[in-house]
């Protein structure tokens, strides 16, 4: 049986390398994007095999799913922009930059591999104090303990990066004339309404479950937010969300809710502790749930707006249509 799993793991590893190589070397933009998405799914299986279901979920939802959708969207914009139906011509400047980039990435990969092999060889790399802190923590999921408490500062900066990314996109949107990516259709094709009617409750329920279960099992704000973002992507693609030229107040609040509440909590912690981001004794669970929830909302709103490539969205009321 162990031989079989060894073969499976070897296939996964070689498949990953092959997919990564094909994603950067295949001639077509569209083919590259599809290969990148497949790479994300195989990566998710690899994380699951390595016993990291949290990473597997995040990889599948964010890297393969939402990043894939974003890249497909960018691909469509690039092809619409050039008026070329098939493929983009290779720009000489990107070809020239290819070899230095490959060299830097290989060097970085080699350094990381050496470090990781040393860490793996030295199992005591997890300090006993850290192991103790994780096992005695009121929250049961060690990943959530790390993300929200022990390394809460990192998570605060991560969601700030997400907000900054959206602000960067807003600035770009002001400065460039993007082709209208998801033009509203006069009629909705058959089957789309039933799909949405089915997918909406399923996605909402799964997202809330992932958020709630993240306290004691794999899941959490990032995975749940990505699922809600995927719902937003579906609504944008099917014309349920219409683009706006400005960001409505409610969406602005949604964007800053997570980082804002997290930052306020970090400051408030100074009133009951000498450290920012320290949890109040006895209320760790409640505080963590509240922060996770606001993070989930902000991640979902940011991802949806990033995908729509518009400053804002609003819901369109769809009547009954029969094409």
């Amino acid at each position, binding site marked *: 049986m162990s031989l079989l799993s060894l073969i499976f793991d070897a296939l996964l590893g070689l498949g990953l390398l092959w997919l990564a190589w094909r994603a950067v070397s295949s001639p077509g933009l569209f083919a590259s994007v599809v290969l990148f998405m497949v790479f994300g799914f195989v990566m998710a299986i690899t994380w699951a095999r390595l016993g990291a279901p949290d990473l597997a979920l995040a990889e599948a939802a964010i890297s393969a799913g939402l990043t894939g959708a974003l890249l497909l969207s960018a691909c469509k914009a690039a092809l619409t922009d050039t008026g070329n139906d098939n493929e983009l011509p290779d720009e000489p400047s990107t070809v020239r930059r290819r070899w230095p980039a490959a060299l830097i990435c290989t060097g970085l990969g080699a350094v990381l591999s050496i470090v990781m092999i040393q860490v793996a060889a030295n199992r005591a790399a997890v300090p006993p104090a850290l192991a103790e802190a994780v096992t005695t923590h009121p929250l049961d999921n060690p990943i959530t303990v790390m993300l929200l408490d022990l390394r809460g500062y990192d998570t605060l900066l991560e969601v700030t990066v997400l907000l900054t990314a959206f602000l960067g996109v807003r600035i770009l949107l002001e400065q460039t004339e993007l082709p209208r990516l998801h033009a509203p259709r006069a009629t909705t094709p058959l*089957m*789309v309404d*039933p799909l949405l009617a*089915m*997918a909406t409750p399923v996605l909402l329920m799964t997202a809330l479950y992932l958020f709630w279960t993240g306290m004691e099992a794999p899941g959490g704000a990032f995975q749940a937010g990505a699922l809600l973002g995927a719902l937003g992507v579906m609504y944008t693609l099917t014309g349920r969300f219409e683009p706006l030229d400005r960001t409505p107040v409610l969406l602005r609040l949604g964007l800053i809710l997570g980082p804002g509440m997290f930052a306020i909590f970090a400051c408030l912690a100074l009133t009951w502790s000498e450290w920012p981001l320290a949890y109040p004794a006895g209320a760790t669970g409640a505080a963590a749930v509240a922060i996770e929830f606001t993070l989930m909302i902000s991640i979902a709103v940011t991802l949806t707006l990033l995908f729509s490539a518009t400053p804002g969205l609003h819901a369109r009321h769809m009547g009954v249509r029969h094409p």
Partner: protein
Amino acid sequence: MSTWLAIALILIGCSFFLAGTVGLLRFPDTHSRLHALTKADNLGLGFICAGLAVHDGSLTGTIHLLFVWALAMMAATVSAFLIARWADEEPEH
């Protein structure tokens, strides 16, 4: 006994995936490719889920797998329909 049944079911599922992939690569136009892909996909995944359910043996596991199959079928149906529609609108593909 149930292990062998599970292996048989999963192998049948894999053969459907193989047939679907060959069809996707070999068939001449969008509609017949979709036909090969969706039939094989749905049946292949169904057999693999059935095999895994037999192997797992628990009721919750079986219900989980049933949901996986149902969701995949739902998504595959709609995307196949939309691709077929698109192929009708742009006949040169």
